[in-house]
């Protein structure tokens, strides 16, 4: 920017609109759609969660030919207050199962993905590494594969009987692993799939964050005699904190919304060992036709994710 511009700016008030109400004009198109398609449906879900879905007329409300699912018109909504919440918190073992599965994936997934993503980003940020762009592009490619597409690839790769992973394991003299037929291995398969898909995404964000750390900070640390670990501990980590927080929170939100992977790879099995909360919502709403109950589960899910994000931001925040 020229000095002339900088000079002119002096004494001019900071970005106050000259047309009153103009900012509202700019934000209103966004808010119109936001209100109709996000806020209203959310409120409606909350509303539905207090009602039971009673009886049905013959008219179809929703037909998904692909899944051979038809949801009949809602004939009657009966107000039942908090009954749904009581049922899902105290009586529903399948809900508890889905909560457990989702929590397990979350507890393994988020640390694994953040640590791997950070390690990859740190290596790619090192000065001596060649062909950085190539490595970065290759590692980030899975971000560009569709959910259904990559889930199908993993379905085949991890197949117990004909999958390539087990073939390689057996060729190396190890025994085959029941990837999809054992509860714990099935959960681990999901974790591997999700990590594969999102590692590059987190790596890019963390790499971007690393590149904003001023070089002088490292030079100053070196003058003070800091070793590699100390530079990481006392310069990189604190400087990277906001970006790390962003990655942790967005990974948390993402993990709690996992749907396509268990839907395609494990189908929620074996014996519901990989059913996630969103999948349970989907089942309740579209297979068992309990729209009210599904709404209540959705509300609980949102509450859970919100609380966790707030806790993470509160304890991870810099201010």
């Amino acid at each position: 920017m020229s000095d002339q511009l900088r000079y002119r700016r002096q004494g001019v008030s900071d970005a106050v609109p000259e047309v009153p109400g103009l900012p509202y004009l700019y934000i209103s198109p966004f808010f119109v759609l936001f209100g109709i398609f996000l806020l209203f449906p959310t409120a409606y879900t909350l509303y539905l969660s207090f009602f039971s879905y009673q009886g049905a007329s013959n008219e179809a409300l929703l037909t998904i030919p692909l899944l051979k699912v038809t949801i009949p018109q809602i004939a009657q909504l009966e107000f039942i207050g908090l009954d749904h919440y009581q049922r899902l918190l105290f009586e529903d073992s399948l809900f508890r199962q889905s909560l457990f599965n989702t929590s397990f994936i979350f507890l393994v997934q988020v640390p694994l993905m953040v640590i791997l993503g950070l390690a990859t980003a740190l290596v790619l940020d090192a000065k001596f590494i060649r062909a950085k762009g190539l490595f970065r592009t290759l590692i980030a490619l899975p971000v560009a594969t569709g959910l259904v597409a990559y889930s199908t690839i993993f379905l085949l790769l991890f197949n117990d009987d004909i999958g390539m992973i087990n073939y390689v394991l057996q060729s190396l003299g190890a025994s085959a692993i029941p990837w999809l037929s054992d509860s714990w291995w099935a959960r681990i398969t999901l974790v591997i799939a999700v990590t594969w898909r999102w590692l590059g995404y987190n790596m890019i964000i963390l790499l971007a964050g690393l590149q904003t750390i001023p070089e002088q900070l490292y030079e100053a640390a070196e003058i003070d005699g800091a070793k590699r670990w100390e530079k990481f501990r006392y310069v990189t980590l604190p400087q990277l904190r906001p970006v790390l927080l962003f990655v942790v929170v967005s990974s948390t939100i993402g993990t709690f919304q996992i749907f396509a992977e268990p839907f395609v790879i494990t189908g929620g099995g074996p014996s519901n060992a990989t059913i996630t909360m969103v999948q349970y919502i989907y089942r309740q709403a579209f297979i068992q036709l309990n729209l009210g109950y599904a709404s209540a589960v959705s509300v609980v899910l949102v509450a859970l994710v919100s609380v966790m994000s707030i806790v993470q931001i509160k304890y991870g925040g810099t201010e």
Partner: protein
Amino acid sequence: MRQADKREALWKFGSYLFLLVITALVLIPIYWMVVAATIPQQEFFSWPPRLIPGTHYLENFQALQENVSFARSILNSLIVSVGYTALSLVLCSMAGFAFAKYEFRFKEPLFYFILATLVLPIQLLIIPLFLLMTQIGWTNSFIAVILPWAANPLGIFLMRQNMKAIPDALLESARMDGATEFQLYYKIALPTMLPSLAALAIILFINQWQAFLYPLVILQEEEMFTIPIALAQLVGQQRVYFDQVMVATSLSIIPLFLVFIFLQQYFIKGILSGSVKQ
């Protein structure tokens, strides 16, 4: 060799090894997709599995053509993804500009309110959105797929963060030169924000290209199916045509790979200013 040099060499070697292992692990499933797409269906369930690509790609592609109207679903995906990306870019950049560069009442609460909705799972909205679309008679239309997600909270977040970097002096001098307020937005903010717009465009395009559950519910006729639904159609059949699924998969991710490879510089820059400079 000095002890320190030795340690340094070991460190470099370890770093490269780590990078190569990660890259290999990432590439294995993609490589395997190529193998699977190029071998005949009957070899699919043979043991040992094929590890080297075959020559059957065109045959598999022809079989795919007979089963689903693949070209049509690519076209549908393009219409939906491009339309959605364009609309969302306009909405998010305008609102982001207002949030970044103007002072107005309720600015902060409105913005944090938008951010808070990031935690809402999309699946939560499917039922009420379907009811709404039925009421206005929009089911089985592209507009019903595009509109609901065009007001994208992540998009507005990135736009606001990035547009904060536009110098106020630039806007002031344009004002003095007689620019209208709206010209500040589309003649100054938009051109200077091209890299961030490109980054957001990639995110939006990829998201919409991959959207599954919601389009599955809204688009009900085969000629309207987008790529993921056409793919799921192949997996959902009695007999799963894995060879065709892999051909379709490999073709469906080509546009994304190209977009990603050519625009990733912007993608990284956009993410950079979006997430870091708070």
